[in-house]
């Protein structure tokens, strides 16, 4: 019996070993390997799928035209399940076993910072695609990390620029009680105080992520009678918050700003039941800007995936344009030269030309501030009265970055 077991075990180990030996050999043809680690499980995947899909679309286009530097692009995706340990081991696997040339991801800020740290040690370029932490290109920035998404500092500054033009004085801050919520609230409030010193903070409410019912929070805020409210909530909590706002008539009583309120992923599921008049900011709308570039992008994306692209699609596209553009320019698969070429690089995109700031590796994305409204022809609310805040205006100064990095 025992002998039999040992024999079976040996056979199984040999079979498994064969896979390891055979698998790499079948990939003998040289490819340009891009690894993506992101969360494709749970509520966050509604954002991350767009990044991957838009990136793949661009990669397929280049492969169809003969690849890059004579190599085919190979995209390897791994699911982090929103967990730092799983994501980090996936990133390790991609770096050490698959030898990826570039790594991309992820929506989880803690994981993005951890991967960024690893990429710094391993000297692998890392493109942060959806993490909203300002630390990525701020305090924890380094030569091998790039961010192609807005972050809490940029969004906060953009919102403050927009809100400072409104007549509100007495504010209430409410949000998700975790890093993103506090970071975005601090970003808006610090900048708003600088731009308009007479603003006053009446109070704050903080709820847990995944809060099931916002009605008690809204009624408590209403009893304090603020002029306007800064709602620092993100992701899946936006939808129930807007529902509760509609049910209680919150939006009609007090104007409120919510960074991602105008995002397609938030407004589409609510249909025409979303509250009107909510102020929000985003890097992209499929209906704005109304340029031929954007129309073409939306058309191609819709043809491939039968849905409208949300903001993540632009991040995916930008990643592709920077990575492939820089390799084209480098003329070889050479990491250090590649990084030199990404620095300061300007690429075309549906939202116009976007430059990667050389100093901190942060893409200078424009921010669009709009107000939710019902518009004929759409079965959900869209952002209207859109004001464009240029990327240059919301970027932290190089001195601020130096200070954060203790340089």
């Amino acid at each position, binding site marked *: 019996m025992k002998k039999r077991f040992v024999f079976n075990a040996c056979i199984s180990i040999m079979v498994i070993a064969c896979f390891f030996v055979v698998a790499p050999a079948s990939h003998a043809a040289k490819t340009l390997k891009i690894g993506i680690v992101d969360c*494709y*499980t*749970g*509520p966050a*995947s*509604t954002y991350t*799928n767009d990044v991957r899909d838009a990136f793949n679309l661009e990669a397929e286009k280049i492969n169809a035209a003969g690849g890059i530097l004579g190599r085919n692009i190979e995209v390897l995706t791994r699911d982090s399940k929103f967990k730092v340990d799983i994501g980090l081991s996936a990133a390790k696997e991609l770096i050490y076993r698959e030898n990826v040339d570039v790594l991309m991801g992820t929506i989880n800020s803690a994981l993005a910072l951890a991967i960024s740290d690893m990429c710094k040690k391993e000297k692998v370029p890392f493109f942060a695609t959806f993490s909203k932490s300002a630390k990525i290109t701020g305090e924890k920035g380094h030569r091998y990390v790039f961010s192609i998404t807005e972050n809490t500092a940029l969004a906060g500054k953009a919102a403050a620029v927009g809100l400072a033009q409104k007549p509100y004085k007495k504010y209430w801050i*409410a949000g998700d*009680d975790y890093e993103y919520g506090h970071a975005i609230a601090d970003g808006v409030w610090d900048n708003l105080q600088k731009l308009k010193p007479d603003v006053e903070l009446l*109070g*704050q*409410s*903080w*709820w*847990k992520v*995944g809060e*099931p*019912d916002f*009605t*008690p*929070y809204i*009624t*408590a*805020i*209403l*009893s*304090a009678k603020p002029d306007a409210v800064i709602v620092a909530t993100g992701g*899946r*909590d*936006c*939808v*129930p918050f807007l*529902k*509760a706002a*509609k*049910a*209680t*008539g*919150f939006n009609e*009583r007090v104007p409120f700003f919510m960074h991602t309120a105008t995002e397609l*992923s*938030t407004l*589409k*599921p*609510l*249909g025409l*039941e979303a509250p009107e008049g909510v102020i929000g900011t985003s890097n992209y709308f499929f209906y704005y800007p109304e340029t031929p570039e954007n129309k073409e992008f939306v058309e191609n994306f819709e043809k491939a995936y039968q849905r409208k692209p949300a903001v993540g699609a632009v991040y995916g596209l930008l990643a592709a344009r920077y990575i492939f553009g820089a390799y084209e320019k480098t003329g070889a698969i050479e990491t250090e030269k590649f990084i030199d070429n990404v620095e300061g690089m300007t690429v075309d995109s549906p939202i116009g030309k976007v430059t990667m700031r050389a100093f901190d590796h942060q893409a200078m994305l424009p921010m669009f501030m709009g107000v939710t409204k019902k518009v004929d022809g759409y079965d959900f609310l869209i952002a209207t009265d859109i004001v464009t805040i240029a990327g240059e205006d919301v970027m932290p100064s190089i001195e601020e970055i130096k200070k954060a990095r203790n340089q």
Partner: protein
Amino acid sequence: MELAANITLAALVQQVLVGLSRTTILFIVASGLSLVLGVLRIPNVAHGSLYMLGAFLTYTVATLFGQSTLGFWLALIVAPLVVALLSFIAERGLFCHLYEREHMMLLLFTFAFSLVIGDLVKLVWGSDYRSLVAPVFLQGSFSISGFPFPRYNLFLLVIGPLVAAGLWFLTNKTKIGKIARAAAVDREMVGAIGINVSWVFAAVFVIGCYLAGLGGALVAPTQNITQGMDHAIIIEAFLIVIIGGLGNIWGALLGALIFGLTDSIGILLWPQFAIVFPYVAVVTVLLIRPQGLLKSTW
């Protein structure tokens, strides 16, 4: 440390009412969990997943009818029944073979069940957020001395006592309810007098899961219907069952009241740290009465 100033009586009443409507959902979900725990001795970790499934099914059924008023009522009836049917199949096919095994086995099994349902939901409905519209006459809110009170929350305030009365009737006035209560006290004895305990268990399990589905269906119009809504509710439901007394549905009612009211009043009094209030209440109850507020058998 700043307390919200100028709390009027009207604001307090309003907040209590909002808290009570939240209590309704918590009670419906927790009572189902408690029922199953008391009679079958299964800590059903998959209870939250059935709640999520209830919400998704409500969305689908209502959407089939163009999210009309009729569709909503139909969904409210159909979705919990589908959840009940699914749990019946799971009980007869899988769970009933495990009652004689160790407790750990059952716990692990329900955990596996929750993962399977979670992935099933992801497979069928995908990762997009979904939202359901309440019927027209339940939309919006009316004013209670200047404060808005959502109509849908009022509807929940009506449903809550109805469900509680239904459960009281079931456990006190029907044969199956009485047998179930007896089985909770001494299942061998119930078997010894010739009652098919296995089918009693099946019935109780199905009723418990129906309540999870009903909770999910009722919450659907107020929430973002998405993956992950199972995790939040299962933790709260277990806390409520524990402070109420394991297995006692009236304990679940009491626990839900404590949880729902401390939550909403905490938000009014101290909005910055409101999250801790219900948990402080739970800790206090457990320090004073570690066995829960009410007896496990009733």
